């Protein structure tokens, strides 16, 4: 079970990361391209949730379609 302990340690570090300041290697003013709407994971949620429903109704697999949105923090 060492991998799961390591996972918890990594996650705890991640969770408490708000307590420390990490210098971003891509500065906010360098995120112009990432802020472009063409870089959004899900530009049209109403359309993507529909096509996901089409897939899930006809296939055996489901899940992990991604929902963390953001990721850019540049608006």
């Amino acid at each position: 079970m060492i991998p799961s302990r390591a996972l918890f340690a990594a996650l705890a570090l991640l969770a408490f990361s708000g307590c420390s300041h990490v210098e971003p290697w891509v500065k906010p003013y360098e995120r112009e391209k990432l802020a472009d709407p063409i870089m959004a994971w899900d530009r049209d949620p109403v359309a993507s949730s529909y096509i996901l429903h089409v897939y899930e109704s006809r296939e055996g697999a489901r899940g992990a379609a991604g929902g963390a949105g953001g990721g850019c923090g540049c608006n």
Partner: protein
Amino acid sequence: MQLTRTIRSIAITLAAGWLFCPAPSIAGVLPEDRADLMYHYYDGGGVQIDGPSVLVRKKFKEKYAVNASYYVDMVSSASIDVITTASPYKEERTQYGLGFEYLRGKVTYAASFSNSKENDYGADTASFSISQDMFGDLTTVQLFFSRGKDDVTRRGDDVFSEKVDRHIYGIDVSQIVSKKLILGASWETIAEEGFLNNPYRQVRYVDAVPLGYSYEPERYPHTRTGNALALRARYYLPYRAALQGDYRWYNDTWGIDANTLEIAYTQPIGDRLMFDVHFRYYMQGGADFYSDLYPRANSQNFLARDKELATMDSQTLGFGLGYEFKVPRVEFIQKASVNLKYDFMRFNYDDFRDLRPTGYAPGTEPLYSFDANVIRLFFSGWF
């Protein structure tokens, strides 16, 4: 259940971190105020489905946001299952959704509820998520939990009434790697318990009748746990365009293994037009208890001839074109767009046979495949 406990522990660890750490001083952002009105159309395998879909999102004081959705499926079905074992039918499914988001510093808390109804199936789902931007906003982590309760009934049978209980646990991570590259990873566990098969579908078995086979009702296990892991990357090309690659692995306790690969390309044309193209390939190994033709009646505990549980693959090629514009004399709409998306899908089955042609010995009929056309036409307004 070990996996479920592990995911619960992960959720508790992350939630504790978020709760006990003071929120950073720079705030995150909520989704834009936006309304979408869509008409959707699906035609494939003898099934036509169309209807409207509406999604509205609105922020208040940059801290709170609400969203509401409405969705209708009008189904006209003469699918291969229906033709071979039942009669064509029409039905309607309506779904309502309501969501609320609260932004505190860089942490977004979200809760939503949805209700889906059709004449023989009802589903209520409540979802909760917590997401945080961290490491200088280079990383976004989201944990989510969803609980669903379904009521399964059967047309023409007032006595039949079954339940499904569903738990979904997931984690999403989105990571900025460079000025042009974002990576994403998602893990999701779906645990279901209850009546999981379709109450109308039947399996066939070899029988000494003129046709060579007879039918009996499907019988699925009453529990199913599936795990999905997805990895994705989106890259800003040297000119203004984006390329995305996705991979998803899926496995569940019914023995279904699936892999999905997708590649997508987005190309703006001038200031107003947006062109998208994507190709998706999906393949799955069938459920352990699935068979197109069982050797005899009641030959095993669990029985399925649902083609969604067969060994199969599918390919999807899709195109989209969007046009952005200002709505004249409507000041509160800052911008609007109209979009048309078309997808061509092909489904091929390796062990699901087409029983419509006659003159074949049972088990030697041609394998089934079908094509589908999917259209999404939608209007979006930002206000």
